[in-house]
């Protein structure tokens, strides 16, 4: 135990998920409460002073990298930016704090999830930049004042922490669904004048896992620590992909050609 703790201290009951894959259980620890304590401080305290076998992720611990994302009392958050007092003030006295791994992703161990599928869906959404120029060409100017660029800028700050992915019930119930982060990124590229993959993106987000599965629950927008709005981005994708699909249907009808199976 560290020497610097005061003699009389309040102890907090903390229930932490332990286990791998589908199997596991909650284990309860008692952690001394401190001023300005964050959830990450609590998890670190347990691993450093009580159980060194507790597995968790963090990196910057200042709210920039998104590595420390976990479920806190059923809500996905960055644990380094979540003050314990803010959570406990809203809890009933006697209830413990519950910390579990991010929802909707397979658990590797304890509080660490496998992010592979989250990144795979980013690629499946064609949300990787499609370059149009080479280093030999002049740099393409980007007009910051256009509505498209402002839409791209509004979506661009995503650091892929998967909080929105964990908050989304469509992700939970539709395995094909690309998810708010991938679709938000796709929207930023649709609005990027330098990106050459507009049609590829619109096709990628029009399938059975595409943007049209979003039911606008807006949990992604509510819980995004960077205050992004994937619901709005997805609404934009719905509009553009619907227009694109209508144009394809109408041009096929007009030319009398038999279309390919969509």
């Amino acid at each position, binding site marked *: 135990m560290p020497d610097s703790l005061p003699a009389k201290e309040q102890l907090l009951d903390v229930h932490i998920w332990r286990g791998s894959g589908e199997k596991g259980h909650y284990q309860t620890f008692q952690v001394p409460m401190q001023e300005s304590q964050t959830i990450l401080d609590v998890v670190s305290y347990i691993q450093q002073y009580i159980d060194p076998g507790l597995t968790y992720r963090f990196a910057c611990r200042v709210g920039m990298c998104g590595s420390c994302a976990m479920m806190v009392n059923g809500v996905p958050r960055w644990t380094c930016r979540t003050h314990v007092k803010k959570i406990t003030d809203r809890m009933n006295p006697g209830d413990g704090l519950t910390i579990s791994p991010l929802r909707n992703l397979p658990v590797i161990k304890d509080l660490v999830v496998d992010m592979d599928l989250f990144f795979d869906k980013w690629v499946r959404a064609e949300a990787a930049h499609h370059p149009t120029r080479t280093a030999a060409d002049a740099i393409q100017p980007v007009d910051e004042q256009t509505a498209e660029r402002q839409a791209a800028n509004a979506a661009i700050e995503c650091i892929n922490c998967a909080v929105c992915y964990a908050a989304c*019930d469509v992700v939970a*119930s*539709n395995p094909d669904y690309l998810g708010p982060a991938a679709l938000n990124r796709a929207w930023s590229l649709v609005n990027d004048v330098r990106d050459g993959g507009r049609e590829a993106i619109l096709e990628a987000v029009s399938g*059975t896992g*595409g943007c*049209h*599965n979003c039911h606008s629950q807006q949990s992604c927008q509510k819980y995004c620590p960077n205050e992004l709005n994937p619901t709005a981005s997805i609404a934009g994708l719905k509009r553009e992909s*619907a227009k694109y*699909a209508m144009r394809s*249907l109408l041009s096929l009808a007009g030319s009398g050609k038999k279309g390919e199976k969509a």
Partner: protein
Amino acid sequence: MISARLYILQRATALIMAPLVIGHIAVMIYAVQNGLSAAEILGRTQGSFFWLAFYGLFAVSVAIHAAIGLRAILHEWAGLKGAVLTAICWAIAVGLGGLGLQAVYSVTG
């Protein structure tokens, strides 16, 4: 489970039905005064091309709209997918549409 095409169809039927829903609720508020009876209702609707068109459009639109809405629910909450899901949704669309058009004909014929 909802592709771009199904999305367009669902939003389009929603737009078509928007004025029809208002009309239907208005009709209900009017009709429910002083109790309901078959004679009163049929007296208004029988032989009427307007009501045939109004409720005929309503029945077809709602069959499509409900089938697509149920498709999302059956996939997300019942785990159905693939050909089974598609077959059930077609059955719902055709079934509801059939029953609806039969009801429209019964009341306006």
